[in-house]
């Protein structure tokens, strides 16, 4: 209880409330820009947080995360250009509603659903995180190693149809890049090729910035997409009334409740996240709806808008559970947050809950404050923030590139980092062009060092034998789940082929 009280008092200081508000605003703006997602938004803000207290820094980052998702919804609804993958499902019904002249209503529904989703998930987090943290105190290095294998496999497994191997190889690439530099155990340098600038390894911020913010900005340059006339008109149009009627609230309530719970649990799962949660919630609501309501989906259904919006926000909170309690991120976004935490000198995990309760709880409380900020401050300001979307791209893109480069440079003051960033961003653009996902790479990179350390510890304890993989029931269970996850696409393919055969 003391921890919760400490967390609340930390989160409610004027400075931290200011940080969460700034984070929500900055996140909303960056999330609105097509092409720039929450990972880029967070990566761009990390250099600013280096001079802050860890709790304030993390609170700011959490605000950015929420803001980016909210911003993504705004561009999905207003111009049918989701800035974030997690808000693609929002555009299915949000944009048709806006086209009918109800943009304000659609934005308000999205904001209320997000707020409720975030609130329900924050309450769940309040109970789930400490419970899991207590359980995970008994975890050993072998269990952690197995959990990391599960997390990385899940990211590949949830990557989408036909993308499993692509995500898997990107995870391996991330793990490979993590081995560059001095080996933490023996002090031996690896893959440095005699270059002193590589002795400390590759900085996570550099890699995140190059793979996301910089490469996304470069893709914008290459794609040379101009804002269409229709999009410009949509932005200049009055968004209309923001009020939602009592009947509409009644229609939304059960949808939001169901989707929030679903979103939270999907968010907790490693590898799944806001995107999968929003699509699942949309699908679930569609199948639960009456025939008449079903016809409205895709044409401006309130249910179709409320479901993904509440689910994606709940999933964002849910994804903090494995991060805060196990120290293992389940998504690219939480991987970047983990990287930031490590650079503050904090190792998230069960010990964080016991040793730094103020930080642990302040993050959870600030998520709730973030939701309030989004609802109370951002929603009324949306018409003005949306105008920023009309800012010419020829001015915005060079600025994003400048902030990416300088953000990394200011940490080390080493121009080698700028050169390395440019090289990585060019490779990232190449990989984007051939549809290789970036998030598994950053997840592999962040987990690489931890994974090797835990494997080393487990092997040393078991005297070099691989027995540790099946000696402890927890380790064995996690690895069995991993194997099931690996072969599940094959099994489902086999069964669907059989069903097709029987149908013939």
């Amino acid at each position: 209880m003391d921890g919760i009280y400490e967390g609340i008092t930390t989160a409610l200081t004027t400075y931290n409330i200011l940080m969460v508000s700034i984070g929500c605003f900055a996140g909303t703006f960056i999330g609105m820009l097509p092409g720039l997602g929450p990972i880029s938004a967070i990566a761009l803000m990390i250099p600013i947080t280096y001079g802050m207290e860890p709790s304030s820094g993390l609170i700011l980052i959490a605000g950015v995360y929420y803001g980016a998702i909210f911003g993504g919804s705004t561009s999905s609804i207003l111009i049918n250009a989701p800035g974030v993958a997690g808000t693609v499902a929002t555009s299915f019904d949000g944009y048709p509603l806006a086209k009918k002249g109800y943009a304000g209503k659609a934005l308000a529904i999205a904001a209320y659903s997000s707020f409720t989703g975030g609130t329900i998930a924050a309450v769940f987090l309040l109970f789930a995180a400490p419970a899991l943290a207590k359980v995970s105190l008994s975890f050993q290095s072998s269990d952690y190693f197995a959990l990391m294998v599960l997390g990385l496999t899940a990211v590949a497994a949830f990557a989408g149809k036909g993308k499993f191997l692509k995500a898997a190889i990107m995870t391996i690439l991330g793990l490979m890049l993590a081995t560059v530099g001095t080996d933490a155990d023996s002090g031996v340098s690896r893959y440095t090729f005699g270059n002193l600038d590589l002795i400390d390894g590759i900085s996570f911020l550099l890699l995140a910035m190059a793979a996301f913010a910089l490469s996304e900005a470069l893709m914008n340059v290459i794609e040379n997409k101009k804002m269409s006339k229709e999009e410009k008109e949509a932005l200049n149009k009055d968004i209309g009334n923001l009020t939602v009627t009592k009947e509409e609230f009644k229609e939304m309530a059960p949808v939001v409740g169901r989707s929030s719970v679903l979103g939270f649990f999907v968010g907790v799962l490693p590898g799944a996240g806001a995107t999968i949660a929003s699509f699942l919630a949309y699908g679930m609501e569609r199948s639960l709806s009456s025939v008449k309501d079903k016809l409205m989906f895709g044409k401006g259904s309130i249910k179709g808008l409320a479901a993904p919006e509440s689910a994606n926000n709940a999933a964002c909170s849910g994804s903090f559970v494995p991060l805060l309690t196990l120290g293992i991120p389940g998504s690219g976004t939480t991987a970047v947050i983990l990287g930031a935490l490590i650079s503050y000198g904090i190792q998230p995990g069960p010990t964080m809950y016991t040793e730094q309760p103020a930080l642990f709880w302040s993050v959870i409380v600030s998520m709730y404050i973030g939701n309030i900020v989004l609802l109370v401050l951002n929603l009324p300001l949306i018409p003005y923030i949306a105008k920023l979307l009309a800012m010419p791209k020829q001015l915005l893109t060079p600025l994003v590139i400048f902030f990416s480069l300088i953000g990394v440079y200011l940490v080390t003051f080493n121009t080698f980092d700028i050169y390395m960033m440019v090289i990585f961003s060019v490779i990232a653009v190449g990989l984007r062009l051939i549809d290789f996902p970036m998030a598994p790479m950053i997840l592999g990179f962040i987990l690489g060092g931890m994974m090797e350390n835990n494997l080393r510890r487990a092997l040393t304890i078991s005297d070099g034998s691989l027995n540790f993989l099946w000696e402890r029931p927890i380790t064995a269970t996690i690895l069995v789940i991993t194997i099931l996850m690996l072969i599940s696409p094959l099994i489902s393919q086999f069964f669907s082929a059989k069903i097709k055969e029987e149908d013939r």
Partner: protein
Amino acid sequence: MTKTRVGSLFFLVFSTIYLYQSFNIHLLPGSHYEAMTAKTFPYYLGVMGIIVSSLMLLFSYIKVDTEDMFNWEKLKTFDFKKGTYFVIAMLFYGFTIRTLGFIIATIIFLIIGFRILDEKNWKVILFTAFGVSIIFWFLLTQILGVYIEQGMIFDYLIGVQS
């Protein structure tokens, strides 16, 4: 040639080089007796990389997905020239930031960036480039207390500030 095939070939070559280089990691005397050395993890990663990229290559021949084919029409619309100019501008920024100093290098970089993207209004270009550079420099050095080198050229012209 499909996208997956290009990617898998790239990763196959990369993983092979990575694996080969793992044998060049110099271990400390006696570390051979340890359960896991600095070579172990990279070795397994290299092997896994080769296996996964080979599987990807193999599957790209067994099943060709139309979505996986290069869309040449779309690629033709991409402006790789502008992208290349930007890459050069970024490298140039890396080169100038220490020699010309933060403010001048940033102004030049932003002006080049705006021009690459066809911004024609010089008033806007100069106002934004000067404004962003100076405000950002002021924020960093005067408010956040971050030390930024004045630039080698200033060291040469007016001497090193202590």
